[in-house]
Structure formats: structure tokens, C-alpha cells
């Protein structure tokens, strides 16, 4: 019974204002993700970074979405279509790693029910700021990852100035966020192999694309530590 069940996308929540849809290009193999060549003028563009550590410390989520189109406003997700690279990693247990990602075309509108799509909804909750991520991405090892996760945090004006002037500058968007949701690992035949409910603490920043392309060097150690309430 469990194996026959297929995850279902639903429409976006009304309390979230802006919606960003990423329509994946299936013809690019996911295994080429890390090595996929970037345009020469892409080094100044931005990456949105999200992570989360579970309360028990044995599960970690890392999600990045990198903009490779010149001229787009990635900080505010202004409307318009531009290229991006999405990468989702989920670490659970001692040595289990699920990684998914591919090159993408970010579109103002998209179909969320299709495989290999990613929706990132932007804030407007009354109790704080929230990012809702819903993505279905092909895994490197075959199969797909379907994730529905939420980063919720209280916006802090003082954090906006926490920008470090290094070769790869980063702007802290959320030093602490409550992260919750679930992740499903799907097999090649679209069967649900594992469902994990995630609850923990996370972080988000905006950084230079150089982090992914390998252009930067010696930009230093960057760490974020969370402590219990």
C-alpha cells in the first residue's frame, strides 16, 4: 500500500505572497550538476543558501539555488525567466546521503504537479518570514527526492548589516529559522522508499555564485552554530 502511493503537489498557501517556480530541464543529467559549465559572466551572481539541522543532530538538509543569468534580481526574485542551478542534499543516519539537483529555468509560472519541478515561495506570514520549498528533483543515484519544507524566522534588521566583505560576500538572511517538513525518497519506479519527517533549526544566506563555481579562493571558514531554546 505504501509503495503505490505517489506524493501529490498542492497549490501554494495563500498566506505566502510571491511564488517562484523552477521548471527543470530533464535533458541535463543530474550527475553533471557539479561540473556543469557556467557562463563566463556568471561569477558575480548570487546563490540562495538554506540549511537545517534536526534537533537530534543526525539529519541535515542543505539546499542551494544559484542564479546564472546576468541581469536578474535574485534577492527579490523579480519576475522574469532566468537560468538557475538547484541542488538539494539530505544527510541522515551515519552514512546515508541523498543528493538531487540539476540545471533549471526559473519561470514566473509553472506546473507544480510535474516531476522535476521546484517551487520556492516567499514570505508574507503575519508571525514572521517564511520560505516554503516544494521540490521534486532527480537524484544522482536514480529516483527522485520530493521535499516539502518550511523555513520560518523572525526578520532582524540588524542582521542585514551582517555582511562580510570577503571575496565571496555573504548576506545573512536568517541566522536562526525553525525548519520543518517532510522528505520522500522515490525509487526509479516512483515508489516511496522512505519518508522522513524533519524538524530542526536552520540558517539562510545570500552569497556569491563563486562558492559553487570554484572561482573563489581563501574566502575563509564560515560556520553557524545553533543552541537549544
Amino acid at each position, binding site marked *: 500500500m505504501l509503495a503505490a502511493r505517489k506524493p501529490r503537489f498542492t497549490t501554494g498557501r495563500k498566506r505566502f505572497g510571491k511564488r517562484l517556480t523552477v521548471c527543470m530541464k530533464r535533458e541535463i543529467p543530474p550527475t553533471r550538476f557539479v561540473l556543469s559549465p557556467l557562463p563566463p559572466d556568471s561569477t558575480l551572481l548570487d546563490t540562495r543558501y538554506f540549511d537545517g539541522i534536526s534537533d537530534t543532530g543526525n539529519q541535515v538538509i542543505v539546499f542551494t539555488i544559484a542564479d546564472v543569468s546576468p541581469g536578474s534580481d535574485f534577492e527579490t526574485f523579480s519576475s522574469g525567466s532566468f537560468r538557475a542551478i538547484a541542488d538539494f542534499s539530505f544527510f541522515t543516519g551515519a552514512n546515508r546521503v541523498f543528493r538531487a539537483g540539476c540545471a533549471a529555468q526559473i519561470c514566473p509560472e509553472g506546473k507544480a504537479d510535474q516531476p522535476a519541478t521546484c517551487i520556492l515561495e516567499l514570505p508574507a506570514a503575519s508571525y514572521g518570514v517564511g520560505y516554503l520549498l516544494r521540490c521534486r528533483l532527480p537524484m544522482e543515484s536514480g529516483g527522485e527526492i520530493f521535499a516539502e519544507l518550511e523555513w520560518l524566522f523572525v526578520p532582524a534588521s540588524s542582521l542585514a548589516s551582517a555582511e*562580510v566583505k570577503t571575496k565571496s560576500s555573504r548576506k*545573512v538572511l536568517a541566522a536562526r529559522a525553525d525548519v520543518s517538513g517532510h522528505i520522500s525518497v522515490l525509487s526509479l519506479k516512483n515508489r516511496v522508499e522512505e519518508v522522513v519527517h524533519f524538524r530542526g533549526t536552520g540558517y539562510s544566506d545570500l552569497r556569491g555564485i563563486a562558492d559553487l563555481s570554484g572561482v573563489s579562493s581563501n574566502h575563509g571558514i564560515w560556520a553557524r552554530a545553533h543552541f537549544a531554546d
Partner: protein
Amino acid sequence: MILDTVAAANANLEAELFITDESEGNCVRLPARASMKFPRFGFGRRFKILVDAAEHSLELTTVKLLRDGPSSRLFLCESRIRAEGQRRGYAICEIPTSFSILPSLRNVFRR
């Protein structure tokens, strides 16, 4: 009560600590100094990163290499901060691949 700490250090190990306390949104930015400690005899991949500011001291102990990327490595760490008391938690730490000031890191990562 400290809830979160973001630490940044450059190649010269000059560091900064961004500390958020329980009144969320109150972020303090402190100059600090980073250092690294390696096990003298092989205890696996674990090593420590220490970030010392005037009144706060953050200690990160690597637990697991999460991602070995083209430009940086991502580690899951146990974290410990000393301020008014001592608190323990978890951390994610990124170290650039080209961090060349410590050649002994290569041997640690290869294990």
C-alpha cells in the same frame, strides 16, 4: 541566552562572531581570532575549530564530512560556546578547499 552564532574567518584566521541572543533580532558582532586543533594521533576526521572573542569562545568539533564540493567542504560539527555558562549544540561549518595554510588538513580529509 545565546541561541545562534555565526562565525566567519579569513585565511589569516582573523575572525568575527555574530551572536544572536534569545531576544531574536539582537545581533552582536564581535571581532575574534580563530585557531584549529588537530588530533596528534589518528582519531579519525575529528578536529577542532576555536573562535575566541573577548567574552565568548566558540568551539566546533567536526563530526562528519557532509559534502566535498569543488570549492569548499561542508562539515557537521558539535558546537560548544562559553559565555555566561556553557552551552552545547550543533553546527554546520564550511572550509574552502583551497585553504592552504594548513597542509595537514589534506591527510585528515583523505581518511
